[in-house]
């Protein structure tokens, strides 16, 4: 117990770690806020710089970036009506009308405090729930791990956008990229085409930086002449009356956010949209209608998306499966740092868990501090011309890719995947599933083979194993439910039922 407390407080008392959490949160807020720069991009580029570090400073920086980045997107959603991140889409609905009414400052203040509050609830739930979940997951068999990997893959549906076919293609492409190199069990070459340099596989981080960093920068070249709109910023600290009034709603939204964030396949963006919908249903008579600047429409998504951060850490740390694209990247980084996120993490390295909790709370506090100050500097940053921003992002992407292994090969991979990512995005192929596939290959491939070997290579025995183990059966049914829910058959059935009902 004392060790847990010691690790929990470590980054609070160590000046270097304290600085890194602060720096991470600060850069997360600002990168997340600049339109076109997503939190996924921030995390993928900045994480690559931590590979040569010890694990503790790296974890501190990562926690800060994630927490700050999820919040940062709300700033531009309010000021420019451009959500800086998908999790801030719901924030723009009422945040921007508030800014147009001249209440931008107050809207930022309110969203900051609610993000802080939601984030805190998420972390508390993480601290309480993860050890319980972890104790349960120790019983998992390879078969269950494989099923978990498949559950992680279902996130493809949520990340797919308009075309499920394109999303599935992207996810399968990711799985294939993840399989490149020597097979970890038999050392047989897979997709190496006789090239020795492919034996170690393609670094997932170079794929991520390419697809999220460079591809986004290339995409921004289309909007090089877009000018930022300036907003007047007045009072920032919201009146006490507002805080008291929306406390209940923010607590409910945070609860919703943490659950949605913890479910594999749904992250902050869905949490925020659901919370917005929840706020609309429970608010009987808002002062201002929703969509025209209702503060309830700002409070709910902001509390929910930051609560989802703590939630997303639960499956990541206890099961090793990502809750969203950002946690997929963090899992990749943890592997590189020699940590294996999954059921054994809390058993073998409980101190890392408490260290992470400490970091997240600290990042949440920094979020409050940086969120309520430096708005002037912020508006300057947002107005930075694209002509300056794009070369700088490219430079960081190149340096980040190089820093993975100190090798220019990774820079070429990054460039290749950057161009591919740009083309994919242009034609509506989502790039999130690619990363998901790359990350989940190992989990699914290795555990599938272990499971099928223990079933003596018999698919019948394997299925029987699933049906006779309550745990596997639950996981299997969950996969079936979600998979059917995402297919067009289900949507068609539902729309037919809806059509029938009114008649």
């Amino acid at each position, binding site marked *: 117990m004392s060790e847990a407390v010691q690790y929990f407080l470590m980054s609070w008392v160590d000046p270097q770690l304290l600085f890194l959490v602060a720096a991470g949160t600060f850069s997360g807020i600002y990168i997340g806020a600049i339109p076109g720069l997503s939190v996924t991009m921030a995390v993928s580029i900045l994480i690559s*710089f931590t590979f040569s570090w010890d694990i503790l400073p790296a974890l501190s920086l990562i926690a800060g970036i994630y927490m700050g980045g999820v919040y940062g997107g709300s700033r531009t959603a309010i000021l420019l009506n451009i959500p800086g991140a998908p999790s801030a889409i719901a924030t723009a609905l009422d945040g921007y009308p508030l800014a147009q009414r001249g209440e931008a400052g107050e809207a930022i203040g309110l969203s900051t405090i609610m993000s802080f509050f939601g984030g805190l609830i998420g972390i508390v739930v993480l601290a309480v729930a993860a050890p319980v979940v972890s104790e349960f997951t120790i019983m998992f068999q390879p078969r269950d791990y494989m099923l978990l990997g498949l559950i992680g893959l279902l996130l493809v549906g949520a990340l797919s956008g308009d075309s499920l*076919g394109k999303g599935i*293609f992207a996810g*399968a492409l990711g799985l294939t990229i993840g399989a490149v190199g020597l097979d970890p069990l038999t050392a*047989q070459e897979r*997709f190496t085409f006789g090239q020795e340099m492919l034996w170690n596989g393609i670094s997932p981080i170079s794929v991520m930086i390419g697809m999220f960093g460079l591809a986004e920068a290339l995409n921004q070249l289309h909007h090089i002449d877009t000018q930022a709109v300036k907003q007047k910023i007045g009072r920032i600290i919201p009146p006490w009356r507002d805080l008291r009034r929306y406390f209940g709603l923010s607590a409910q939204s945070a609860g919703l956010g943490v659950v949605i964030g913890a479910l594999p396949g749904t992250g902050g963006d869905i949490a925020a949209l659901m919370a917005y919908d929840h706020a609309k249903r429970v608010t009987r008579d808002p002062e201002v209608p929703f969509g025209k600047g209702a503060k309830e429409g700002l409070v709910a998504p902001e509390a929910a998306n930051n609560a989802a951060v703590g939630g997303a850490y639960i499956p990541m740390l206890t099961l090793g499966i990502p809750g969203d694209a950002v946690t997929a990247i963090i899992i990749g980084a943890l592997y590189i740092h020699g940590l294996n996120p999954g059921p054994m993490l809390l058993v073998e390295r409980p101190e890392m868990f408490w260290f992470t909790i400490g970091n997240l709370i600290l990042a949440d506090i920094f979020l409050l501090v940086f969120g309520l100050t430096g708005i002037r500097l912020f508006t300057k940053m947002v107005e930075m011309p694209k002509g300056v921003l794009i070369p700088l992002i490219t*430079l960081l992407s190149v340096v980040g890719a190089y820093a993975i292994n100190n090798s220019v090969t990774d820079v070429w991979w990054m460039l290749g995947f950057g161009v591919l990512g740009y*083309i994919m995005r242009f034609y509506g192929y989502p790039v999130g599933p690619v990363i998901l596939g790359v990350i989940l290959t190992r989990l699914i491939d290795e555990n599938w083979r272990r499971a099928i070997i223990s079933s003596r290579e018999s698919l019948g025995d394997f299925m029987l194993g699933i049906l006779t183990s309550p745990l596997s059966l639950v996981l299997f049914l969950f996969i079936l439910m979600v998979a059917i829910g995402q297919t067009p058959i289900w949507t068609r059935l539902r729309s037919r039922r809806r059509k029938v009902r009114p008649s």
Partner: protein
Amino acid sequence: MSKVPTRQPGELPVAMLFFAISLALLYSAYGISGFSALSGPGTFPLAATSIMVVSSASVLLRTARMRAGDDAGAAGFFDHVMPPLLGIFIGLIAVYAVLFASAGFLIASLVFLTAGFHLLRRRHLAGSILLAIVSLVVVYVVFRLVFKVILPEGIVPEGELVAMIGRLLSGGAAQ
């Protein structure tokens, strides 16, 4: 009558390309261990690439059924998807990657930033050079000195420079 959606310029060739790549990868996956065993090293790649083939085929069919836009063809592709500015910028990054390894981080980045700023801002060259120098100093201090990221030295004796700054700082602290 429902309206047939229009496809974007280049969308069909890209869908065809993805389908062809999927087929090639499926063939390569089959070559790993064929259908020898369910636990073989090739089973997972076979499954993944089969999904690629099926999904890319469905996307290809859907794209082929769309109506070609007015600006379909190579000209439309270069207008919308790969305008000259984008092509030049990608070329610039490739040059940067080559220089990065040979001439080192400092020289390569200075050249890249100056060219990049000049290309995208379309203002005076002197301003771009100055901006590149200032940005490079900031990036260098943050990533090389604070984050301690190892960068290719190339022709500038940058390691000695760092050591000298370190000596100066420690000397300053000792006084």
